């Protein structure tokens, strides 16, 4: 069964990795901390490994696409909350357009590819 193939897992991960930045930016209109974002994405069908997500948030912040600060909410422990910045919103708009274009192209390619099989 192909899903048990080690190559499948690697290739599937590569496929998901390509969409990660877009997924993360799209979910940070409201402030979220790392764990809550991970849960939100997982609940919406995009599970992400913590070793991938948390450093990604830092990287996006360094690139100016996210803002972050430490907050204490409801007397809980201090957490670092992330929210999309103005630059991030603009980036998200452009990436979203690229994404929709790519989806159209991929739909066509896959339809062709599956039909030939």
């Amino acid at each position, binding site marked *: 069964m192909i899903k048990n193939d080690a190559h499948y897992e690697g290739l599937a991960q590569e496929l998901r990795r390509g969409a990660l930045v877009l997924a993360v930016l799209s979910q940070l209109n409201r402030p979220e*901390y*790392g*764990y*809550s974002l991970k*849960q939100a994405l997982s609940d919406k069908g995009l599970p992400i490994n*913590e*070793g*991938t997500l*948390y*450093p990604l948030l*830092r990287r996006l912040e360094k690139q100016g696409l996210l803002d972050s600060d430490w907050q204490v909410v409801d007397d809980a*422990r*201090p*957490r*670092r909350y992330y929210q999309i910045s103005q630059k991030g919103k603009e980036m998200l708009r452009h990436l979203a357009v690229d994404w929709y274009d790519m989806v159209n192209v991929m739909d066509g390619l896959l339809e062709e590819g599956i039909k030939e099989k």
Partner: protein
Amino acid sequence: MKPIELLERYVNEVGHHLPRKNRSDIQLELLSLLQDELEERTPSGKESSLQTAAELLREFGKPEKMAAQYRPEQYLIGPNLFPIYKLVATIVTSVIGGFHGILLLLAFFNGSLAENPLGGLLNIISSFANIALVNLGVVTIVFVLVERYADLSDEQTDETDEWDPLSLPPLNNPNRVKRGEMIGGIVGAIIFLVILNTFGSYSINEQTGLATLVTPEFLAIIPLFSLSLGLDIILKTIVAWQGRWQTWSRWADIGQESFGVFVLYLIVQQPILTLGDFPNLMTRLILGFIIVIVILEIIGKLYRLLVGRPIVDLDMLKGRLASG
């Protein structure tokens, strides 16, 4: 040990592999995230267990691996600088090698190697290795510092990295031989072979009063010299007829050149000319220089055959594709 202590140990270990900048901030955040994850896995009303904490950390991965995710990709010498580093390292090693080749030559001619040739040779090789390693180390350190402190981002190098496709060199199949040149070389070698084998006997037999130019010792080596030339002629004839170098003929070429070096070495051991010490010395010096050059050429050919980029014969590939 309590679960929180295990998490703190993990965060502490990750910190050892993080860059100093933002280290404590990342550690604080990581600890907070780990505590969130641990709470999620612990049934409400119960205390989290050490086992759960350990399982959680296993999923997060080894501390150095987690820390690596927070660091940008690091190179000792990055892909932008590496080609230049390789070129500089090659030049430095070649210059040091060339210098030691001259030392070897001088040692040979001033008699330093006469008593203990192997020991003398080993000394020169050892000196080359030491000096080459030290200099390569210095070159490496310089490039590591440039990589570390100079801004060599891809965006920057891409802007200055313009090139003109029209300036690409023409295709040169290194396996193809220029028949005309090869035949010229063969004819020249045959002429030299004939002269070599007739000149000596002419001078001795005719006794015209002309002094024999070459010594009896040299005359005794002529058969071996002729054999070397003969092998060269045969090999080049075959290669010229086939029109291309192949792996076996490249190995044969190295073998034949090595034999030629051996014969030249035998020649320079003895006096060659009967014209006096100075002409003799100059002739031996020139031959010794030729020996060094040919040895370097042999080393280069060996390197290309064994280690260098494979020689791609496009004509042969095209032929194979056409014939299916």
